């Protein structure tokens, strides 16, 4: 019969391996959010091309499409940056990604509240994904 000490040792090593796998999963969530955000970028880029190349009137009278594209691009780059950082500090990176994303989208909404409605589904998916990344990395953070 195996001794309880061996069982305990195996469980501890297995739990550590599970936490490591979850850590990868937390990183993946940030990357998935960046991918979803890239999809959300299609419409602002379409508007910008419409205005710049086809010289048509902007569909949104309140905000120049270039500003929208700049904010969206900044959010995407910030997510990628936090994804890279999450290799070293997953919990802080996930918290920073959510805070950065909400701050940038909040600033965009302050300039034009209409932007809260545009792509609301994408924004909700990104925020939920980042919350998931925080929960996953928090489990490991608290276990340490």
């Amino acid at each position, binding site marked *: 019969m*195996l001794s309880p000490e061996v069982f305990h*040792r*195996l469980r501890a*090593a*297995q739990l550590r391996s*599970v936490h*490591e*796998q979850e850590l990868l999963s937390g990183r993946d969530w940030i990357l998935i959010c960046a991918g979803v955000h890239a999809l959300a970028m299609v419409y602002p880029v379409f508007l910008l091309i419409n205005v710049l190349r086809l010289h048509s009137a902007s569909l949104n009278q309140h905000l120049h499409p270039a500003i929208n594209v700049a904010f969206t691009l900044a959010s995407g780059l910030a997510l990628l940056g936090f994804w890279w950082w999450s290799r070293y500090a997953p919990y802080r990176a996930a918290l920073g990604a959510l805070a950065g994303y909400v701050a940038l989208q909040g600033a965009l909404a302050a300039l034009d509240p209409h932007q809260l409605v545009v792509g609301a589904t994408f924004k909700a998916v990104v925020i939920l994904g980042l919350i998931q990344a925080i929960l996953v990395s928090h489990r490991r953070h608290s276990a340490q």
Partner: protein
Amino acid sequence: MTGSIPLLEASPPDPTPDAGPKYRGGPFAYFIALTFGLTALGGGLLLVQSGRPAWGVACLVVFGAVAARSIACLVEHFRHPTSLPRLHAVLGDVLAFRIRSTCRDVAATVFFDSDKPAAGSATRLLCFVENYASRQRVARFRIGPHPALGLAAAHVVDLHLAAGQAAVYVRPLSVAAALAPGEHDLPVTLQVQKPTGTGVRLPGSRRHLYDLWTVHFAAPFTVSDIAAQPSAASEPPRFLTLASASEKQPRLDALQFLAR
């Protein structure tokens, strides 16, 4: 057989035969049967009514064939008797490992024993697997690469698992003396083949687990800065049966070699 990759049988071999239907006939089969059946009937009738009988027949044949295939799977599922052997659930219940998902009905977990080796010492990689299905599986582990563990290229091994079998693959590894102290990961990927069909989940297995096609592990280990006598991994790799659905009790004594 999978090319030049050796197919390992666990020791002792598990004689449990395949049981249950070849196809699972689950909700996906219902969905395909209904969707394609309705498409075949509706599309065929519409095309015939609009004066295109040849296209109507083609629609009926093509979509109807898919629906008929799904219906055949469902019929096979219901014709099989339900007396299946009971799973021991060694990984989740007996050893109390935390299992989050399965890979095509195979529960798996990968870690080091010891996970805090000194540079230059030997350690073991343990790959625990348990087949929750009523038909055999072939679990392919791609271990590495990790040059500091002597794995310059990925080590690929195929493990044969009978229905309900639990087993552990033990791969001794040597930690390079030059490996920097700190945390490291060994990447391991698991993919599972179903050579004799899907089968059904055995009684005693957990049904709410995510079932993935590929599972990536990152087996962690911490290299301590304590000086150790250089030692190579002298023991050969082993593949040991921990439980068989044909036996009443699991064989946890197979893990005796882990006692120090």
